[in-house]
């Protein structure tokens, strides 16, 4: 099994740190170094870092780059300033999601960086090439040449400034980035993340990534695995492709319609999104809180009191920061209103709960 798995440029460090390694998205990745709760709390209370080098970096440039990216991307990049980052999706014509991603508009005219999910790199790249016909653009998958570290938590700014030796990191706004170099290689530093805390994502060469990771370790930043990356993003109400978004779940169903701009002339999937926004959808992603400590896990049925199934759990935890059992679930729209009583079948028992807001945890972004 393992010979088919890719290693990130930080693999040796993970092993040296004693991480529990497990397959994820075709990579062998650290799930935890110490334990999930301690790593989760490090990010909420101080600062933690994640190896996210498995993520994909696809560059787009050329005279038609803006028109092309706007064609495949749901959010509006026209009028969007260089040095800014935008979240959105690429859709199939039927509104299903190819991937959710970040678009970086580079300072150099007609240059964009698209950061995509590790599991979807090959699929996304092929999709992007297929859609490029008729556009004067170059689409370049550079994922293997780049490493990426996410530094997250209330002390992230201090540590990033200190380790990179670049005071300007402190001046970067939420969903903005700047371009720099590390030992002669290009480095991109953005104020982005996937935890609900303030933080940065640092992209550079694999060698640079290894050096910066070590410097962050030496500076006392807690290495954090994918285990707590999931508990953190979940509490912050952020979707994970494969759980809350997929080819079968549209952004409107997932509650992410605001990232699909209908005032754009066109984008792939726009017709379906426009119809769903106007007419509603049959299913909707909701948050559900249950009173018991039992944990609703992905795939568990969501029911009415009489046992009729009305949906399914997509992600669930006993939340570390909130000490509550909560989940995302895709349910029939008539059951999606806040406060609706719903029951979750957990093994042989059924637990009562109710629909609550999906952002379970109050995020602490520095805007």
């Amino acid at each position, binding site marked *: 099994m393992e010979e088919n798995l890719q290693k990130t440029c930080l693999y040796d460090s993970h092993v040296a740190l004693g991480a529990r390694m497990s397959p994820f998205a075709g990579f062998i990745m650290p799930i935890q170094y110490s334990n999930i*709760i301690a790593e989760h709390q490090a990010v909420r209370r101080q600062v933690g870092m994640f190896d996210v080098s498995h993520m994909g970096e696809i560059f787009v440039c050329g005279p038609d780059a803006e028109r092309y990216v706007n064609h495949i991307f749901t959010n509006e990049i026209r009028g969007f300033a260089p040095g800014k980052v935008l979240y959105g999706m690429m859709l199939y014509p039927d509104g299903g999601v190819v991937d959710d991603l970040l678009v970086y508009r580079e300072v150099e005219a007609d240059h964009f960086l698209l950061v995509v999910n590790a599991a979807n790199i090959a699929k996304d790249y092929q999709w992007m090439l297929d859609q490029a016909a008729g556009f004067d653009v170059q689409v370049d998958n550079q994922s293997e040449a780049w490493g990426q570290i996410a530094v997250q938590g209330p002390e992230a700014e201090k540590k990033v400034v200190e380790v990179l030796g670049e005071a300007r990191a402190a001046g970067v706004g939420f969903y903005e980035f700047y371009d720099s170099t590390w030992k002669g290689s290009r480095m991109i530093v953005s104020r982005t993340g996937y935890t609900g805390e303030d933080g940065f994502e640092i992209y550079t060469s694999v060698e640079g990534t290894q050096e910066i990771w070590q410097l962050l370790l030496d500076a006392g930043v807690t290495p954090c695995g994918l285990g707590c990356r999931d508990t953190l993003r979940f509490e912050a109400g952020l979707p994970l492709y494969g759980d809350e978004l997929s080819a079968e779940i549209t952004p409107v169903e997932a509650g992410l319609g605001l990232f699909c701009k209908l005032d754009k002339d066109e984008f792939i999937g726009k017709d379906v999104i426009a119809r769903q926004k106007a007419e509603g959808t049959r299913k909707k992603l909701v948050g559900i809180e249950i009173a018991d400590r*039992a944990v609703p896990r992905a795939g568990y049925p969501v029911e009415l009191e009489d046992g009729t199934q009305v949906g399914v759990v997509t992600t669930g935890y*006993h939340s570390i920061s909130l000490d509550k059992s909560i989940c995302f679930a895709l349910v029939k729209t008539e059951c999606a209103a806040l406060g609706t009583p719903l029951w979750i079948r957990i093994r042989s028992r059924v637990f009562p709960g109710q629909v609550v807001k999906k952002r379970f945890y109050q995020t602490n972004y520095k805007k």
Partner: protein
Amino acid sequence: MSKVQEGLLYSESHEWVRVEGPNAFVGISDFAQEEMGDITYVDLPDLDNVLKGEEFGALESVKASSDLYSPVTGTVSERNTDLENAPELLNEDPYGSWIIRIHMSNPAELDELMDAEAYAKFIGQ
């Protein structure tokens, strides 16, 4: 390295059994608690009959749930309800924290369980 306590019997699904007359106290091994990580919830069974190999409850850690399987056939006669409020006891003291007491109906089944030495080998130690 996980601790394996002498004097207990072990199942392949990592439950331990402490026999006291007709009663079997059932818990999980140190190996099992290490594999699971921080245990946050114990789903205890009703006081009812249970078959050897049958699921009788579950443990939840942050990342996953894992089922508990009965090492013997009998009737669940007591549940350690202290674990409902303090599931972490299973991490802190796995051999001191029994989960259920089963009144055995077929004690001969105990012969099919592993002793400490065999279990240590089973988990690769």
